[in-house]
């Protein structure tokens, strides 16, 4: 860019990082709270940084895989197709199809508890 002519000093218009993130809604939150700064639950950079990925399984043979429909349009039918694929191609894998009770934005602790108790792995789908 040309530097000809007098120069100006201007201020940066962009906000500063805060270390505060949004996160999924609590189970008793109304669905519209996802875009509501007053009611939306928050996470911090520290809390997010402490989260780690779980170790993987050696194999899915004989394991129970939960298939969770997150609630986006078409997800129910898509996850049914995923379940059908397992039935046809991996009959040794037991699958359990579940549908989130509320919106895709909302926590579902009862379902997570069921999966932790009875499952070995989870497939979530389908976003978008």
């Amino acid at each position, binding site marked *: *860019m*040309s530097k000809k002519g*007098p120069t*100006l*000093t*201007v*201020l*940066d*218009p*962009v*906000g*500063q*990082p*805060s*270390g*505060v*993130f*949004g996160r999924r809604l609590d189970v008793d939150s109304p669905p*519209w709270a996802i*875009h*509501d*700064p*007053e009611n*939306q639950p*928050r996470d911090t*950079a520290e809390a*997010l*940084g402490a989260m*780690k*990925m*779980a*170790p*993987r*399984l*050696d*194999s*899915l043979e004989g394991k129970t*895989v939960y298939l969770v429909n997150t609630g*986006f*349009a*078409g997800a129910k*039918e*898509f996850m049914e*197709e*995923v379940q*059908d*694929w397992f039935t046809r*191609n*991996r009959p040794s894998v037991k699958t359990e199809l579940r549908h989130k009770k509320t919106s895709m934005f909302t926590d579902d602790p009862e379902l997570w508890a069921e*999966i*932790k108790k009875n499952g*070995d*792995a*989870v*497939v*979530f*789908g*389908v*976003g*978008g």
Partner: protein
Amino acid sequence: MPTAPITTARFADYVQRDGRSHGMNLRYSFPPYPVGWVSRETLHGYVQGNDPISGVPLMEEVISALTQPLTEAEKHSKLVKRPLRTRLLEPDTETNLHRLFLENGWTDGLPIILPTEERVAEMLTGTDRDPQEFVGMMSVTTHEERLQYTVERVAVNAVMAGARPEHFPVILALGASGRPSMPSSTTSFASMMVVNGPIRDEIGMNYGLGALSPVNYANSVIGRAWTLMSINLGDVRPGATFTASTGTTINYNNMCCAENEELSVWEPFHARKGFKRDESTVSLFRGWTVLGFNTGPVQRMLEVMKNLSGPFGGAFTFVIDPLVAKSLKHEEGYDDPMELSKWLVEKMQTRFGRPEMVNFVVVGGEMNPMWVITDFSYFQSTSIDPWIPKSGIRKDERPLRMPEAVASADGSCGISH
């Protein structure tokens, strides 16, 4: 527990960026898109076929995501911190700076006023607050890192919008709400803002004829300032944080107007929400679009609501000419618009069924008894008064005002040339 998320290939970049900002790149698999409103055969093909991003069979990829050992990077993932912003940008020529702001996506695409130190300092005279006082945090996303901002950063965006110090308290109240005017959603959100109270007249806002049209300086620059704040303080980055599929032109100005308290037969909107009548507030609404406009009694309103209920239906905000409010009160007996909301909700039998989800604001110049129906929900009203200087609104010696609507009472019948 091992988890394999699936999202469509349209969001591959999006979730990978999200993974970086959250410190964990999950093992996504990506089918083609769209998934919604396509045939079962198409979905069957997606599941049987390849991930178009990796070229690997989709379900084999899902199984690998659950069974392949974690890499060292996955075991030791960490959140990448965004760098702090500087207060001043590198000095440059006016032409180059305009290009810089435009090419960095710091504007709405229209020309801006460059926020020089002198101009920002002048804007700061519009409040008594310390320039470095924390005002709030904002993000157009639901999940990404919020950006925080001071009184000075809000002033920078107010200058860019073309506002004057007299407008600054309203703009600060918008900033304090923490609410972006254009939250990110593939469904393309829109917002509306309505000002109540004495500040309307002090800063020359339009609540009469053409209040929602570009014929008033205050309405134009305040509405635009909310958009620029949403972009710069709410972190709009198209595709990365902002995903509105079609977008909406309402985002340019956010239907910024004031309520016509003088000609309304009802309590002002903010008074109905618990504020004092002599308090100045800005009320914020959000939905998707203006559904239509019409005229007629409540039965007609009900018919239109039933016909127009959108895919996410249930909430409506009516922007009604003062003549409509008069008719509703005097002809149909609704002394309180909440009674009307209750009646409409009862008749609509909506999923949520709360009268608070049907709102009325009185705006317009009594040229036609018409009402505009939107799918907007009311979210909050924020007080403007805490941001006003103790000495009062800081006005220019000769405040900038566009021509006011010509009143026929002066004998001109609106003919000025």
